[in-house]
Structures are given as C-alpha cells and as structure tokens.
C-alpha cells in the first residue's frame, strides 16, 4: 500500500515540474549568447536578453582574448616592445607599430630621418587599406553575402604580398616601424609593385559598387547612431564620421608627414550601418591618394637613425611621460608611456578604439534591435576583439 502511495506522490511531483517547464517554455523571454565561439562574432561575446525576436538588453562580455600587453611591455626593451606591438591588433599591426614607435621617439628625443617618415606613412596607409578590406569582407559574410567576403580576402592578398616583400612577413611585420625609423629600407622593385596593387584595389572598389541589393536592404536604416550619442558614448574614427562629425587625428593633430599631404575626410550624416560601410570604401580611396603622393615624393637618405641601426640592449629611456595619439583604421589609438630612466618603460597604457565601440556603442545599438540585425550592427562598427582585450 505504502509503495503505491509513494509512486502516486512521485507522479504528482513530476506532473508539477512538467507544468512548471511548460510555463517556462511559453515565456518568450530568454538569454542568447552571441560568441565567443560563434563563427560570426570573433573572439568576443555578447549576452543578449531576447523577447521573441526583439533584443531587450545586450551586455558585452570581454576578456576572452586578454594577453596583458601593458604589463608585458614593462619588462621589455623598446625594440622588443615594437615586436610585441604588432599583436595588439592582428588586422592592422603596422599602425600599432607606428603609435608605439612615436611614443618612444618622443620620450627619447629621436629625430626621425625624413625618408623613414615617408616609409612609415606609406606602410601605415597600406595597412589601413588592408584593414578596411577585411572590414568589408567580414561585414559581407556577417550578412550572408559570401561573394563580397571572398572578393575582399582575395584582393587583400595583393597587399600582403607587398608586406612580405618589404617587411619579410605577410601578416606580422615584427616591429617593422621601430623606434628611430623603420627596420629595413624598401626594395627598389617595391614602388612599381605598390602602384600595380593600387590599381587592383581600385578594381575591387568598382566591383563593390555592383553590390548585392540584399546587402543594402539589410544595412540601410539599421543601427542608427546619432551624432550626440556617438560623442556621448566615445565613438571615434569611421563610426563617428558616419554619424556626421568631421574629425580625423591626421588632420586635427598631424603627425609624421600628414600635414604635407592632400587628402579629404569622408563624412556621412545617416549614421546607419550602410553609411559606415560607405565611409570604409571612401577611406580606401583617400588612402590610395595618400600612397600615390608619398611614392612620388619619397626622398633619399637614411631609413633609420644611424644610432639605432643595430638594436641596443643598454639604451636608456629618459625620464618623462608622453601621450601619443594616431588615427588608425578603427579610430583613435593612443599610447601613454611613462619612464623613470630605466631601459624599459615604467608604464605603458594602450588606448584602443575598439574598446568603446565594442562595449558602450554596441550595447546601445543592440538594445531594441532584431536578432537578424545583430551581425549587421556588430560588424559595421569595424571592431577588433584583439585590440579591445589587449
């Protein structure tokens, strides 16, 4: 008898849990994880609270790619840090090389030879084009436009060939732009090759104009960021320019030889994903203009300060502190370096543009959006998880 009672109890109990489960299932609110092992997210995750198809709130979850560069740099010589600075952002290592090298140059009071300055700008702009091409590629594949992705990564390879010729590595230049100048002179054959590659990139831009109509319909009016919100949330670079603010560190606070060059800053007013994509394409055109000017004016002379030709173990960094900012492909990058007179920096703070784009801006834009629009918003911000986590 008692056995029977207990089975009834169990049945009642299981019925109760079943009813609870059914109630839970009919509740339309749930959590959705976008990343970090999601093919469309990079090494970064966003926790989405979703009601049906609509996102109620989004919370960025950084830290998956943290490598601790700021601490590592305190134990290394400037030339070793130049090699390390490649890895801050995998997609545009040369731009990060330049920010770091400028900070050390300013602290040590090095007068960089003019040929080195031209080569630095040349490489930084090639790196910017390459980064924008990746942006276009991942943006396309995020929206299911595979042709765009394959086209972008195919044309990016031409630029990687130039990097291989000049720096000796396809993706990582290994501190090519180092304190004092650049580590190697550009070979004589490079000039013609670069011009040929620029023609190829122009060809790609023409192809991009033949875009898939579905790409346009999925990005127009999606993820609109007004200019006030963009400034409030700390957006910089292409994201801020797509919202209508004319700003560029290369014009506002010129470094290297940017004040001698003639180029324009593309600005759009819409502030949506499509406007950001168009800004990327316009910037590739401007970079091509800059590279052509640099190549035509490239002076002769040393490519590195003669005292830095051989790496030195004993070079001391004079006491002081410096903050250097540069315009890299994703926005404004900064390095704040403090030295107490030793041969390694005392503190090196890195300010990456992606941090603010990936946390406040992304969280703000995803709120109230549809699930299907997540990749469009996410990739239109031109973000790099490596740069954010550092």
């Amino acid at each position, binding site marked *: 008898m008692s056995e029977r009672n207990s089975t009834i109890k169990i049945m009642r109990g299981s019925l109760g849990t079943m009813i609870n489960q059914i109630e839970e299932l009919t509740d339309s609110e749930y959590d959705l994880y976008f990343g970090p092992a999601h093919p469309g997210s990079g090494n970064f995750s966003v926790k989405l609270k979703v009601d049906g198809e609509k996102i109620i709130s989004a919370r960025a979850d950084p830290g998956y790619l943290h490598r601790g560069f700021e601490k590592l740099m305190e134990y*290394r*010589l400037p*030339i*070793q840090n130049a*090699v*390390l600075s490649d890895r801050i952002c995998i997609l545009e290592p040369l731009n990060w090389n330049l920010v770091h090298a400028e900070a050390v140059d300013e602290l040590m009071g090095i007068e960089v030879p003019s040929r080195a300055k031209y080569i630095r700008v040349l490489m930084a702009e090639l790196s910017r084009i390459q980064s924008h091409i990746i942006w276009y590629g991942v943006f396309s594949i995020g929206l299911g436009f595979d*042709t765009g992705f394959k086209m972008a990564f*195919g044309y990016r390879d031409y630029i990687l060939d130039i990097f*291989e*010729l000049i720096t*000796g*590595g396809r993706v*990582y230049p*290994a*501190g090519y732009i180092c304190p004092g100048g650049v*580590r*190697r002179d550009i*070979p004589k054959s490079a000039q013609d090759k670069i011009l040929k590659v620029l023609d190829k990139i122009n060809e790609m831009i023409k*192809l991009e*104009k*033949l875009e898939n*109509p579905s790409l346009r319909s999925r990005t127009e009016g999606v993820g609109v960021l007004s200019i006030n919100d963009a400034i409030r949330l700390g957006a910089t670079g292409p994201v801020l320019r797509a919202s209508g603010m004319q700003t560029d560190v290369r014009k506002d606070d010129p470094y290297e030889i940017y004040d001698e060059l003639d180029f324009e800053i593309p600005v759009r007013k819409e502030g949506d994903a499509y406007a950001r994509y168009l800004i990327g394409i316009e910037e590739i055109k401007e970079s091509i203009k800059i590279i052509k000017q640099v190549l035509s004016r490239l002076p002769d002379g040393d490519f590195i300060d003669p005292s830095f030709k*051989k*790496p030195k*173990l004993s070079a001391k960094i004079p006491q002081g502190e410096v903050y250097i900012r540069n315009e890299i492909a994703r926005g404004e990058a900064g390095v704040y370096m403090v030295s107490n007179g030793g041969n390694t920096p005392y503190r090196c703070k890195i300010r990456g543009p992606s941090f603010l784009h990936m946390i406040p801006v992304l969280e703000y834009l995803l709120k109230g959006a549809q699930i299907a629009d997540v990749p469009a918003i996410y990739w239109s911000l031109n973000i790099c998880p490596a740069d954010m986590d550092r």
Partner: protein
Amino acid sequence: MIKMKIGILIQLLKNLFSKSMTVKFPHESIPIPDGYRGEHDYDINKCISCGLCAKICPNRAIEMVEASEEYREQYQKTYPKIDLGKCCFCRLCEDICPKEAIKLTKNFFLSTFDPSTVIKYPMPKNEV
C-alpha cells in the same frame, strides 16, 4: 522588382576564362622574396658566443648551451639553442649578431608532428 545590375555577370564571364589565382602547390610555388623571415641558419664557426641573441630575443626562444660531448673539445664555449616553437621570427637575433652567425632563411616548412625537431641545437654545419 529589384533592378539587377549586369556588371557582376560580366565579371563572372571574365573569371570563367581567366587564369586561376592559385598554383599547383607541390609542383610549383609562388616565389618568396629576399629578406623573408623563415627558419634560422646558424653557423657555429662564425659565432663568438657573445650571447646577444639570447638577450634580445623577445620570447626567450634562444638559450646559450654547451656543445654536445663529441664536439666539446673543439667548441668549448656556449652556443645558442633555438626553440622554434617559441620563436616569433622577428629577426632581432640576426640584426644584433656582430658576426652574422645567425641568418633567417626563406624556409617556412616548419610544421611537424615530432616535438624534438622543433629545437635547433648548435652543431657544425656539415657534420650532422
């Protein structure tokens, strides 16, 4: 109705009859330019055992070790042992070497299943 642009079709036809971008790899390969940062070429006879390469290496992939017993009479100092697994191929060892004993070659076929082949011991060139 969505207006379709025909430009992409022209491109498609062009691509059908153009040469492919890839090459048939084991039989032919894309030439690698000079100055590529690949596997190290180390010449023990030029080395003066100064240890600068071990000090500059950002990843501490180079360690100064004694030569193996059969060579110890001939080579009595310490010589660089390179761990390719740790190496980031930055070429600082080549740049700092005062005697050009370490040079980076164009060889990039370095993937292996055998972990012991990852470490390069300092041995005379022709005798190993």
